[in-house]
């Protein structure tokens, strides 16, 4: 073999090595872009089918014919549909969701204001769901078919079946009104409003930074009930998925081999088997986070939690379509992003997925 041929084959090998990941990244970007376009199509379509005349909503029903026509031309309702969609897409890509009718602020500005509240709630709920859900799933898998498994399975099914708004009301009735263990609706007592300067937007963290322990405990006391309720619902899903992943691992021969070598069952289950499952769990947790953002609409309504969900709910009732569609867009983009993230993280953490073409 000549040196040139060797160089060519080495180059080919290198190309083959790098082409797989590159193709995967391109595929991924392509599908993310396509999903995003689909999302804009749907929100655009929703904006079109709404039975409210957008021009009338701006000018009011006492406006003259001339004013009506001028505004109609300005916002472009008479243009062909594809052109309207193109204009809409252009705006969305520039993060311009229009102005909210209720607050009279740009929708994006409103969103950035309310988003941290939702984040604080969803993050704590995710923490609760993971910290309790994963061990429960492992226990269910190791006690497969026995009463522990049945109990955990039944507990998850209960979680799947709870209407979150109802559970929130019952929780408020019991723990706030009757027992007085937690604070009621809202993020803070009125007395503590505006004491802590906003840094991260998460009140618990901001109050710690400012050293206001009283504010911190008040915020935590408001947070704990809605977060536990959302956490319980995500716990059900996390526990169930952990169980089925763990069952897949415990069937494998390496488990038997390590046990035969004299490793303690505890170590085999919680270190070796669970270590192999973490990668799959990341996907599950990412998706759980997405569904927590979604579930926020109902939970925040019940708990008067001033986040994205409550903002969208209020907009729904005032026919503030810009805000509703903007909110749908933001949650949709986060959702797509989480989906993508789990696709990206997967091969990074799991060498088997990396070598698979």
């Amino acid at each position, binding site marked *: 073999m000549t040196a040139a041929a060797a160089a060519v084959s080495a180059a080919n090998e290198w190309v083959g090595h790098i082409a797989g990941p590159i193709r995967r990244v391109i595929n991924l970007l392509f599908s993310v872009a396509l999903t995003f376009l689909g999302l804009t199509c749907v929100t655009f379509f929703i904006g079109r089918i709404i039975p409210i005349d957008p021009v009338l909503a701006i000018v009011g029903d006492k406006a003259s014919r001339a004013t009506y026509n001028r505004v109609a031309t300005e916002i472009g309702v008479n243009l062909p549909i594809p052109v309207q969609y193109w204009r809409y897409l252009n705006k969305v890509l520039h993060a311009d969701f229009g102005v909210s009718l209720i607050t009279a602020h740009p929708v994006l500005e409103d969103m950035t204001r309310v988003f941290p509240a939702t984040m604080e709630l969803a993050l704590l709920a995710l923490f609760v769901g993971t910290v309790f859900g994963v061990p429960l799933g492992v226990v269910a898998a190791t006690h497969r078919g026995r009463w522990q498994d049945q109990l955990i399975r039944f507990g998850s099914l209960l979680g799947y079946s709870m209407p979150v708004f109802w559970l929130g009301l*019952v929780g408020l009735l019991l723990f706030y009104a009757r027992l007085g263990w937690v604070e009621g609706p809202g993020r803070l007592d009125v007395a503590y409003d505006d004491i802590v300067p906003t840094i991260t937007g998460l009140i618990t963290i901001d109050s710690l930074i400012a050293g206001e322990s009283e504010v911190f405990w008040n915020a935590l006391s408001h947070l704990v009930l809605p977060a536990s309720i959302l956490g319980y619902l995500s716990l059900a899903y996390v526990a169930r998925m952990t169980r089925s992943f763990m069952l897949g691992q415990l069937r494998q021969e390496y488990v038997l081999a390590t046990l035969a070598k004299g490793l303690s069952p505890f170590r085999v289950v919680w270190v070796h088997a669970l270590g192999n499952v973490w990668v799959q769990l990341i996907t599950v947790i990412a998706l759980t986070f997405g569904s927590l953002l979604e579930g926020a609409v109902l939970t925040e309504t019940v708990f008067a939690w001033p986040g994205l969900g409550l903002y969208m709910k209020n907009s729904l009732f005032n026919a503030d379509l810009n805000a509703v569609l903007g909110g749908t867009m933001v949650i949709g983009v986060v959702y797509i992003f989480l989906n993508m993230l789990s696709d990206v993280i997967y091969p990074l953490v799991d060498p088997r997925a990396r070598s698979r073409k």
Partner: protein
Amino acid sequence: MGWRGWLLDPAPASRRQARLGRWYRAWLGLYRNGLAMTGLFIVLALVLIAIFAPLFANHAAAFTQTLEDRLQPMSWAHPFGTDELGRDIYARVIFGSRITLTIVALVSVIVVPVGLGIGLPAGYFGGWIDAVLMRITDIFLAFPRLVLALAFAAALGPGIENAVIAISLTAWPPYARLARAETLTRRNAEFIEAAELQGASHLRILFTQIIPLSLPSVIIRLTLDMAGIILTAAGLGFLGLGAQPPAPEWGAMVSSGRQYLLDQWWVATIPGLAIFIVSLGFNLLGDGLRDVSDSRAG
């Protein structure tokens, strides 16, 4: 031998015997599962109560406003108390089961054909048809379902029909995926080839060979989805986007009882309990059915 022996005969003499035997074995599997039987009982009870609602409760008590009887606590006359307009909550919950069942039935009737209509051709013909159809499905699958249903319901205006449309629009993609997977596993089977050789058209093969074999897994998936559909519908109702007053929709009843929560707890909590029990029933049943169909899943 008796009828049980006939049903469990390992060498059935006719198609009918084989089919009935298969069903009987599935039934035995379900029968052994106490939780699944509880679920079946709840679902059957829901259907019966919805059909024969006037036998269980007084129609007038559910809809007539008697303001002097408002917010009464539980008693013999009003087992679950009365709401803010003096209507009997027990009767309203009973009649509300009709709305729940209607929504669930309508969504199923829309979602299954749409899912099959997209999944079957994708799996059967493959190639670019598969690529296009599955790309569309994946796009819809990546959407946040509840939020999208909310936006649809808000745009279409409140009401049961629009809630059904909004839920269906976001609920079909898993069925397309499932139908495609089911078709792919059978696409190259010899009995399909045999049918092709006999000159059966694509449509005939899809309808006589593939759909009947795919239906069981679709039905199991549907049972498991029911709880989610009920919860979404109730959530829309709670937000005021579902059935409109004075319809006794359970989610809307929870919402209207909210302001009396602290003093008259039953107004909001009882209808919510109904939602919870019914969706638990579907979940228990679906879980059991899945175990029967796929014993490997454990």
